[in-house]
């Protein structure tokens, strides 16, 4: 769907000739002539106007009745009046009507001072009311959810909140009950309004009807400052404004950046700021003494770290977690590689350099906005609402408003299935076979065999290929493939057919189309580009000899080959897929140096040195969004007294080992990074500014993407529209022995799939307001498997493989594919990474 073009027209408003884009709604077009038309229900982010509040009535010559400016598109030659007696009377009438039942409790209302109703009443109201009957009174405030309070007296029925729930997040939990003046906002049968994006209604409400439980009565607008930054809690990297009072973050609001977040936030981003000021936060350095972590001075902690690193003789490894900035990652890899001579550094990219170069090729990149305007989007192996929540809203918007055709190919049923033109399932872990089948469908290759190996329906694979191929009529059109990083676990066996697919769809160099990878970590893309990789340095340059990746590091440490682990903002027992080997590694390491905000069990048990980490509201630096946009993190508040910036610590450790890099401020680190990464050439923090810069949109930078001899050729060969020259390697999806076989009914083995809930995050656990959302382990099963195993919905079960087990609650899902079971990862207890797939057995838990 090509983006709409805007053409300028001229119209007259209050006697002035004004230019504005054609068909823009009058209330917006009026702004081009510096005329403000008051509104309540109008909010373009919510889609088509509803014209409910009638606040925006204007006089248009040639139309007898006053018209709503929010729903009237401006036309060339239109003559509009907003200052006539008639219009003013109408505006005063509407304000008078609205205030009939609105309590004038502004002094005790949390919205006071930032309330559109106050502003409009002052600006356009009559200043008096003739309403003398008692106003309606109801209990206030009431809980709408643990996060949101509702004061129904104050509600002016503008429809905004319910439209958000119904038409934006499409959770359809928040509705209007009854009709007429008895209408009220509520949920079904007293269920709380709990949904991933519920908090957005707080910002939409133009009165004090919906207020934030955690923020209520913490501050008045004149006590606070707003500080713009970026949320680092997931790869979506939404732009935010922190509400700061007395150096504390009290609230997070969306800072609209159409290209990133469209002005929305998920509830994790909105409420997990509480973790910044949590009691449990580590705010002083610690060193393990006599087996116990004790708070020490910075000097002692730094000494301990220096000694550990110095004594390791290069047998060290560095691992960076997702919230690590580009600068921190850059300094870490330099410390490990250049200062200590160890090649072992990783950020969990999960793909080798050539794969990263191929998939990251500037010509193949799609943007977030492309998701909204493409002809077709294929969501491959990711659940956006969990992996990069705000993209979920973007996909829904594309389908709803621009008729984007959505195809979903996942192993676990997706929350986007109902919006999809086509949803295809494959077995967990069978991505390589699935993508091979799909790619083969384009080239006339064998589809049945890989499809069968993927546990996918060959017919559905063909159907998907047809959908992608015909999205632009008789040709592919603009296709965006949104894939999850986990899809790439099998390396070239996936990247090769994925690139073939990209070739078949003509994605290379096509604006509005391409690949968009969702990393598992917030700054996954930035860390790769900064060189936090075992086989590539900053700018993805080749390194002389490759080190171990994350799992290799764990194995080598467990085997005693490495002795010091440097963990920058990561808890491998939680973040890494293979918990068992990491347990052994941490056990075997002589020193574990960790930068951490919280003492997770891992840190508590294994760290020998702990540096308190800055929170994301305190940090300065840069990040890279999954679509290549460099964004700036700016400090909103000062760090707690005992906390130092990670860049300082990393530089100090380098300096004490004799390496002087001249890093005096975080900006000097940024400059060094930009200098080291060829495709960041010429960038500066000022250029990045408030909205960020997508580096590959500049031709010179795009051209600086590494070109290895032969690699380009290999890519173009892969992308060329020729049949696959060789049979790709893919592992057959394991067939659960209990399926198909007649005697299988006694064997309960199922294929294990994993997913990480939006709520599985340390910041969520540390935020009291979000406590209720902590995920508990549950195992999703198809009704057929549950029946076969005699397990009922809600029953406690154990899920086991190779001697390890986790406890979970059985959760039956009608859409769950038979033969697979899905467990959550990233949670503190009973996480899926305890188990070794691919098959698991499920048993009823023996009652304790």
């Amino acid at each position, binding site marked *: 769907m090509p983006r709409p073009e805007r053409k300028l027209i001229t119209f007259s408003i209050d006697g002035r000739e004004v230019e504005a884009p054609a068909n823009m709604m009058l209330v917006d077009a009026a702004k081009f002539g510096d005329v403000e038309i008051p509104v309540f229900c109008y909010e373009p982010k919510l889609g088509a106007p509803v014209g409910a509040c*009638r606040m925006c009535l204007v006089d248009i010559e040639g139309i007898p009745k006053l018209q709503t400016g929010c729903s009237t598109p401006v036309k060339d030659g239109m003559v509009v009046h907003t200052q006539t007696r008639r219009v003013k*009377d109408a505006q005063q*009438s509407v304000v*008078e*009507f*609205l205030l009939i039942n609105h309590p004038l409790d502004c002094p005790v209302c949390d919205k006071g001072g930032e309330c559109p109703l106050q502003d409009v009443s002052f600006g356009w109201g009559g200043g008096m009311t003739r309403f003398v009957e008692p106003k309606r009174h109801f209990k206030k405030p009431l809980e709408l959810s643990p996060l949101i309070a509702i004061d129904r007296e104050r509600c002016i029925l503008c429809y905004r909140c319910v439209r958000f729930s119904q038409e934006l997040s499409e959770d359809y939990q928040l509705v209007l009950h*009854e*009709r*007429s*003046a008895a209408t009220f906002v509520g949920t079904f049968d007293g269920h709380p309004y709990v949904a991933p994006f519920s908090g957005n209604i707080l910002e939409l409400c133009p009165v004090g009807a919906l207020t934030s439980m955690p923020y209520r009565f913490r501050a008045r607008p004149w006590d606070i400052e707003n500080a713009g930054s970026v949320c680092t809690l997931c790869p979506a990297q939404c732009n935010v404004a922190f509400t700061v009072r007395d150096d504390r973050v009290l609230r997070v609001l969306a800072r609209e950046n159409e290209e990133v977040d469209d002005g929305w936030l998920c509830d994790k981003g909105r409420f997990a700021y509480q973790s910044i000021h949590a009691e449990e936060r580590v705010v002083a350095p610690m060193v393990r003494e006599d087996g116990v972590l004790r708070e020490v001075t910075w000097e002692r902690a730094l000494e301990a770290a220096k000694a550990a690193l110095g004594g390791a003789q290069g047998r060290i490894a560095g691992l960076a977690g997702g919230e690590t900035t580009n600068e921190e990652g850059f300094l870490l890899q330099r410390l490990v590689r250049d200062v200590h001579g160890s090649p072992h550094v990783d950020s969990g990219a999960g793909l080798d350099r050539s794969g990263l170069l191929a998939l990251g090729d500037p010509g193949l990149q799609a943007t977030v906005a492309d998701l909204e305007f493409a002809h077709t989007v294929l969501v491959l192996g990711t659940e956006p609402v969990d992996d990069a929540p705000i993209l979920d809203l973007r996909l829904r918007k594309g389908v709803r408003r621009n008729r984007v055709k959505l195809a979903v190919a996942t192993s676990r049923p997706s929350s986007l299935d109902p919006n999809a033109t086509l949803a295809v399932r494959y077995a967990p872990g069978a991505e390589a076979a699935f993508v091979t089948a799909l790619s083969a469908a384009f080239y006339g290759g064998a589809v049945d065999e890989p499809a069968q190996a993927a546990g996918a329906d060959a017919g559905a694979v063909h159907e998907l290929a047809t959908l992608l191929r015909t999205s632009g009529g008789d040709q592919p059109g603009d296709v965006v493939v949104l894939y999850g990083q986990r899809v790439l676990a099998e390396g070239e066996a996936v990247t090769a057919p994925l690139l073939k697919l990209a070739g078949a769809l003509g994605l290379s160099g096509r604006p509005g189309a391409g690949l968009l990878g969702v990393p598992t970590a917030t700054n996954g893309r930035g860390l790769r580009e900064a060189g936090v990789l075992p086989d590539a340095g900053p700018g993805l340059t080749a390194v002389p000899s490759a080190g171990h990746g994350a799992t290799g590091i764990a194995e080598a440490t467990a085997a005693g080959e490495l002795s010091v682990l440097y963990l920058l903002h990561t808890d491998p027992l939680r973040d890494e897929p293979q918990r068992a080997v990491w347990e052994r590694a941490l056990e075997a390491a002589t020193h574990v140096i960790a930068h951490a905000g919280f003492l997770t069990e891992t840190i508590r048990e294994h760290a020998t040195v702990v540096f308190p980490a800055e929170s994301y509201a305190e940090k300065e630096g840069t990040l890279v969004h999954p679509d290549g946009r460099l964004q700036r993190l700016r400090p909103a508040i000062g760090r707690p007294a005992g906390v130092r910036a990670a860049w300082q610590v990393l530089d100090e450790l380098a300096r004490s080992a004799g390496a002087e890099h001249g890093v005096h401020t975080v900006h000097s680190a940024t400059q060094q990074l930009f200098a080291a990464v060829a495709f960041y050439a010429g960038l500066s923090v000022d250029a990045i500014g408030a909205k960020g810069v997508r580096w590959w949109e500049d031709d010179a930078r795009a051209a600086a993407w590494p070109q290895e001899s032969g690699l380009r050729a290999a890519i173009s060969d892969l992308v060329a529209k020729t049949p696959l020259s060789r049979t790709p390697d893919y592992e057959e999806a394991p067939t659960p022995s209990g399926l198909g076989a007649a005697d299988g009914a006694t064997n309960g083995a199922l294929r294990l799939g994993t997913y990480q809930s939006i709520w599985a995050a340390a910041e969520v656990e540390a935020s009291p307001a979000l406590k209720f959302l902590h995920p508990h382990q549950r195992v999703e099963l198809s009704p057929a498997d549950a029946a076969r195993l005699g397990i009922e919905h809600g029953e406690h079960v154990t899920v086991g493989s190779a001697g390890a087990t986790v406890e979970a609650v059985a959760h039956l899902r009608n859409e769950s594919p038979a033969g697979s079971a899905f467990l959550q990862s990233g949670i503190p207890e009973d996480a899926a990474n305890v188990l070794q797939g691919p098959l698991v057995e499920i048993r009823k838990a023996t009652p304790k």
Partner: protein
Amino acid sequence: MSSAILFKDIDEPGLGTLAVYQRRGGYGDVLRKGLSMPREALVNELVESGLRGRGGAGFSMGKKASFMPKGGMDKYLVCNADESEPGTFKDRELMTKSPHMLIEGMILAAYAAGATKSFIYIRGEYAQQADILDAAVAEAYADGLLGENILGFDFSLELVVHRGAGAYICGEETGLLDSLEGKRGNPRLKPPFPANQGLYQGPTLINNVETLMTIPHILGMGAAKYAEIGVENSTGTKLISVSGHVKRPGNYEIELGMSAREIIYGLCGGIEGDHEVKLWFPGGSSSPVLTSDDLDLGYDFDSLAKAGSMLGSGAIIVVDDQTSVVEVCLKLAKFYRHESCGKCTPCREGTQWTVKMLERMKSGTATPMDLDIMASVQEQITGHCLCVLGDAMAMPVGSMIAKFRPEFEEYIEAARERAERELVASLDAGLVGSAT
């Protein structure tokens, strides 16, 4: 000349069955003639007949059909059988007694509009009529009169009888469409008009039951002949529902232009108890009221409009001089308050404010100033709402205040005195402050 067209032999036993309807010529030559005409010719015929919508707005049926775009998209015909305007009950009698006439009218209208799917949106309270329609539709399908290639013509039509569930606003055409789409029956913003974007976003023609039922007769007698009935700009016959204080309430088919006096005193036998007419609503409860001074008006679109009111749905409600205008006004306002969909501000708040003021008038806590405020509130509603439900209260209430101001004032005064007396009495009895 007898004005029986729709009502001709309406009580004939079995008229509701396909057999009897066909025996009387239904689904016969007229339908064949219609389906063999080019669409445009059929639309022209309707335009020429001068038939104006019988649902309330009185828009030319033929013109509305002519707004339907050409093209291959799915188009819809919706029959508005919501009939919830207080005082209106004509569609009920028509559907009860002659359901096939409606189906035949719909086939022709759908053909004219290029619609291939049609719906009858009938109010849920009319369960008995909906059952009758369901049975008739089943008969028509069985006989090939609905479905593929009707009567062998290259025209197919599906018809679904859809029952509402009790909401006046679903008679408003866009509220109806939302309701038919399975939503709350909130009216939509216009434009886009239904002819461009209606049901399921497709072009949609919406007409009242009576309007649609008239079509076969127009075709039968010819547009020119039909246009001769009635008066200028108000052609044909009209079913009027007369209720209230008349001796013989009921539906009558009249030739448009007949005087109101003839209707009320002639057809309906005058006022019960031989009282005088205090006021009458000429076109349902939403029409501004007229008084006994207006009884000699011709009952047609233009005459009623000229008198400051409207023909509306053709429902005359007669109120005698024994009844308090304030009480009528309160009933009316309460109805609109209850039926406001709640979407737009002036209607939602204006209707409830009006009720509250009237209740204070009744309880003796209002002053004549409240009467001015009430009149001004009606002005604040008029023309400012999303649909015309708000105006539908504001216009009759406004007209009552304008025409019966002295009575309102007396009523307010009397109620105040009564309230004061009661207060004094209760003070005397020492009741105040004990229990409330």
